[in-house]
């Protein structure tokens, strides 16, 4: 009967209950949509950025990240490769051998990063083959080189010209080589665009006297959000000889930007929920005033105050939580629709996005957390606001309540 009583009490003032619920429904719906698009966009952003160069997770010789020299490279190891590959969240494992050198044409020199890659597997992480703007991508046993567009421009070189690389190899040997330019790559990031050069792995290893050595294994994952998990799990077995890092460590600035974006969202939602809290609180306030007399009667005839409070709190929590559930249910088809048919950005913004190498699309996320977290938030608000009726009811004096 107490449940029945509480339920009927909820619908005593239908209009007010519906208005309160509707405001919760609206807030939850808005919050879910906002979070979904934010998470979706950020997720895509991570994925995009990770595919620029770093990949989601990298494995290095222990100490390499602190001191990025060829001397900190590691010998090719099939067992390491297989171990990484065997992880269920890992799509591809791609080797790299990278270091700084001077690139020179007849008249110009410039520092650049030269990266030895496996031409066949590298595109799995970075889609490097898609970024060719002139010439062609590297063949497997190629003797040529790929230069980023900005670097080639600086050196005043084009496809089929020759570039000279000068540097220091493994254990300090001097490294010099001449390579024909096979193709030019355009990076969206200006930073990358002015200083990248790609050699097939065997050429790079030759050049640096680092036979069978890599500086990094780059992992492509089924999802970029798994990066931390994969890192932790691999680190468990690899610790000691190797270091495992996820993109958040590899790209700390990006991580900071993303966290900032999230915080911004949180502030907006806090304001939204603050408004909703006032609405719910107003309802509680009015309800308490209206039912003062009745509460007095109930306590007078022998209903314990705790029992009464529990009932009233249950009523308030139900109003809020039902609102939250309706909001969540309504959000499912909306989010589902946009998940399937993401919003395409057009006009100036589209151009800006393309220039930075991003798809001009707003993706929506359907991560479960986005949905249920809002109900938890609303439930917490309702419980916190319930402190008020609790105090009010515990302090009821029947004689005074009934005088009104």
């Amino acid at each position, binding site marked *: *009967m107490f449940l029945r009583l509480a339920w009927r009490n909820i619908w005593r003032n239908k209009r007010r209950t519906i208005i309160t619920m509707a405001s919760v429904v609206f807030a939850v719906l808005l919050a879910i949509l906002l979070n979904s698009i934010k998470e979706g966009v950020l997720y895509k952003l991570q994925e995009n950025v990770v595919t620029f160069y770093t990949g989601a997770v990298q494995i290095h010789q222990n100490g390499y990240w602190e001191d990025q020299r060829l001397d900190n490279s590691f010998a090719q190891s099939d067992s390491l490769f297989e171990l990484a590959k065997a992880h269920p969240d890992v799509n591809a494992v791609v080797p790299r051998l990278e270091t700084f050198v001077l690139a020179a044409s007849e008249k110009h020199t410039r520092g650049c990063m030269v990266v030895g890659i496996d031409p066949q597997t590298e595109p799995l992480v970075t889609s490097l083959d898609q970024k060719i703007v002139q010439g062609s991508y590297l063949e497997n046993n190629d003797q040529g080189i790929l230069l980023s567009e900005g670097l080639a421009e600086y050196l005043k070189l084009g496809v089929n010209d020759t570039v000279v690389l000068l540097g220091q190899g493994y254990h300090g040997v001097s490294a010099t080589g001449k390579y024909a330019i096979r193709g030019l790559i355009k990076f969206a990031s200006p930073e990358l665009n002015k200083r990248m050069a790609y050699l097939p792995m065997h050429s790079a290893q030759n050049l640096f006297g680092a036979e069978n050595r890599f500086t990094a294994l780059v992992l492509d994952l089924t999802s970029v959000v798994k990066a931390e998990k994969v890192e932790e799990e691999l680190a468990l077995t690899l610790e000691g000889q190797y270091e495992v890092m996820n993109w958040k460590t590899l790209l700390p600035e990006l991580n900071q930007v993303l966290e900032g974006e999230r915080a911004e969202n949180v502030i907006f939602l806090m304001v939204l929920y603050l408004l909703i809290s006032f609405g719910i609180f107003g309802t509680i306030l009015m309800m308490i005033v209206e039912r003062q007399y009745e509460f007095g009667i109930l306590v007078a*005839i022998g209903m314990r105050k705790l029992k009464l409070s529990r009932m009233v709190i249950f009523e308030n929590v139900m109003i809020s939580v039902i609102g939250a559930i309706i909001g969540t249910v309504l959000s499912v088809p909306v989010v589902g629709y946009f998940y399937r048919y993401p919003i395409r950005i057009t006009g100036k913004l589209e151009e800006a996005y393309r220039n930075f190498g991003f798809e001009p699309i707003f993706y929506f996320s359907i991560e479960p957390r986005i949905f249920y977290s809002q109900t938890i938030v609303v439930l917490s608000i309702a419980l916190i606001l319930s402190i008020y009726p609790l105090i009010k009811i515990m302090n009821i004096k029947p004689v005074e309540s009934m005088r009104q």
Partner: protein
Amino acid sequence: MDSHNHENCVIHTEDLTKIYDGGAFPVRAVNDVHLHIEKGEFTTLVGPSGSGKTTLLNLIGGLDQPTQGKVWVKDVDISTLSKSQLIDFRLHNIGFVFQAYNLIPVLTARENIEFVMLLQKRSKAERKKRVFQLLREIGMEDKINHRPAQLSGGQQQRVAVARALASKPQFVLADEPTANLDSKTAKNLLDTMVKLNEEEHITFIFSTHDQRVMDRARRVITLVDGAIASDELKEEQHIIIG
């Protein structure tokens, strides 16, 4: 002093005083009241407005604390009870009928009556039996599923009486139960209560301004300025249902 220990005594007050300090000068709403009420009595408290009837009933019912003096219900000094014990004590020992709006608006007549028994954790079978018995006694079997808003003022008060009795209390306190009723309805309500008093020996204590109520009572206590001015026992004939 020992008089309240006597077997048939349900209410005993000694030296009962309530002083309100609210306004410019303190008000002695109840002033040194010694009262003794036995099981099965049908008593009215009368007196002009402001004479302290409501205050006295609230003190007896444990809804208000006296400034001085004590109230015993059976052999319990209710001032010794903690707040939550007092709530439980009321639940099991005292029935209340207030002037108006006694009932929970969202519950039906039947549910309102059942409610107190539910608080008392009585079994479903027992609740059901008693609800129907009470509804019959107040003559409202046909209105069991009506909500208070669908009942007349008199019907609401009768349901309130039934609710007050549902818990099988030691006595029922009723503060001007007929105040909002027309005379015919008031008579009906009184008939019901007199009948319950005679047939089931339910102890009733009323406050009232209503002459008809006074006429029906066996004992009339008159309050003036919070003190008992007179306490009359009437002849049996007066209360026979006309």
